């Protein structure tokens, strides 16, 4: 076994120190070491997007990210999207539009959508589709997810 090193990470604005071997994957660190289980494990190979987190604001596959290379970057997980128990507008829109069914892919979609609307508050439908095209959903046919994201734009879908 290789030696562990203490990683200094910033997760949801909170500095944390986690002893970790170099091969530790960020997804495993979040779920197993920190109990941040909102980040989901769907395939472990970058082919579903359930494990999406924001790394310096950018939607990223935590299953293909070495935890050690995340030092010095701001990590935002789904747990950091809402403030306390108050949902983010994107989350509210997902609830209101029925954009979750089984919910397993939902945290990933929410993070992709939050980042999109932060950078492109007036994103078009095409841009929304593009932004979520790394997240698989097997329940909704994406329809209500797209509707929810469009509705979450400032000023809504109209």
């Amino acid at each position, binding site marked *: *076994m*290789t030696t562990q090193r203490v990683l200094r990470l910033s997760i949801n604005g909170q500095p944390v120190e986690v002893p970790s*071997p*170099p*091969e530790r*994957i960020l997804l*495993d660190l979040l779920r197993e070491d920190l109990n941040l289980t909102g980040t989901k494990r769907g395939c*472990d*190979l*970058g*082919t579903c*997007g359930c494990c*999406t987190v924001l*790394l310096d604001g*950018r*939607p*990223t*596959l935590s299953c*293909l*990210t*070495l935890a*050690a*290379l995340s030092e010095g970057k701001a990590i935002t997980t789904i747990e950091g999207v809402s403030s306390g128990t108050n949902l983010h507008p994107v989350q509210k829109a997902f609830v209101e539009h029925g954009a979750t069914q089984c919910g397993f892919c939902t945290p990933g979609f929410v993070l*992709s959508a939050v980042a999109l609307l932060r950078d492109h508050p007036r994103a078009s439908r095409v841009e929304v589709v*593009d*932004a979520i*095209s*790394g*997240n698989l959903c097997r329940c909704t046919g994406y329809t209500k997810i797209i509707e929810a994201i469009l509705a979450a734009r400032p000023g809504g879908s109209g």
Partner: protein
Amino acid sequence: MHLDPFELHRPVSIEEAVRLAQELAPGFDYLAGGTDLLPNYKMHLNLRPHLIALDQVPELQGHDLDRIGAMARLADLDSDREISTHYPGLAQAVHGVATPLVRASGTVGGNLLVETRCFFFNQSLFWRASLGYCLKADGDRCYVVPQKEKCYATFSGDLAPALEVLGAEVDLAGPDGNRRLPLEDLYNAEGDGIQRHHLRPGELVVAVQLPPDARRRRSAYLKLRPRPSFDFPELGVAVALERDGNSLAALEIAVGGLETYPRRFRSITDGFVGGSLSGDRIADLARAVQGAVRPVHNTAYPPDYRKRMTGVFVRRAVTSLWEGREAS
């Protein structure tokens, strides 16, 4: 799925990276964005005990219209309007890579050197053990074209064809110093899915250089794949041309996703430069390129279909560019 233990090195300069590489060779891999390497490691494909991460090497970062650092993120190219304005083919290729999530981590250098793919190779350890390993990982035979000499894994990068037709060169750094090569010379045109490039031991890609005349070229990249995201190219056709009045002043075609390296067609395209293009001439060109490619059955679509689409894509791309339209 976990990763087997390895040592992680994080050099802060090219010199340090190359020195580490020299020390550790051949027991290391360079790690760029990780979106290709780490899934392969999770599937126990050709593991090395050391990883040299390149994320802290400043010389590899950044991009502009003349130079693209090897560690430039695909997402940064994707959102750069200068790139899409001046190099539309490159922009199409970048945008077509995998998914936004992959492009967030994935790098230009990583895509240029993306591992060749094959459905006998890109499988779990269990799957490969159950069949018997192949030439490309742990075994001694090829299952695509049954024999024991040559690997037919498919070159699956999108950027290389798009950059080659712009006349791109690559800067390399290694234990024996720095050198610059035409990008197409980076790849092994002998056709081998394992010895797929001409990098020397310890050598790494520093940057891609684009010549000034690249901006004059009209360019396009057309990608065939089952789904508009996620999928690697089943075929990627890059075309760049210059039109001078009614004369074709330059024509470059590169095709990925079919063979073990991005194919070029100088002997075909040279015959068209200097003349005018008509529908018939373009059809001849397309037929000739189609006739020259040799896909094998190791991706989602059957090879005869990918071959046939090569002709269609070449014709469409050349026609659009000749007529000054955007190709899609």
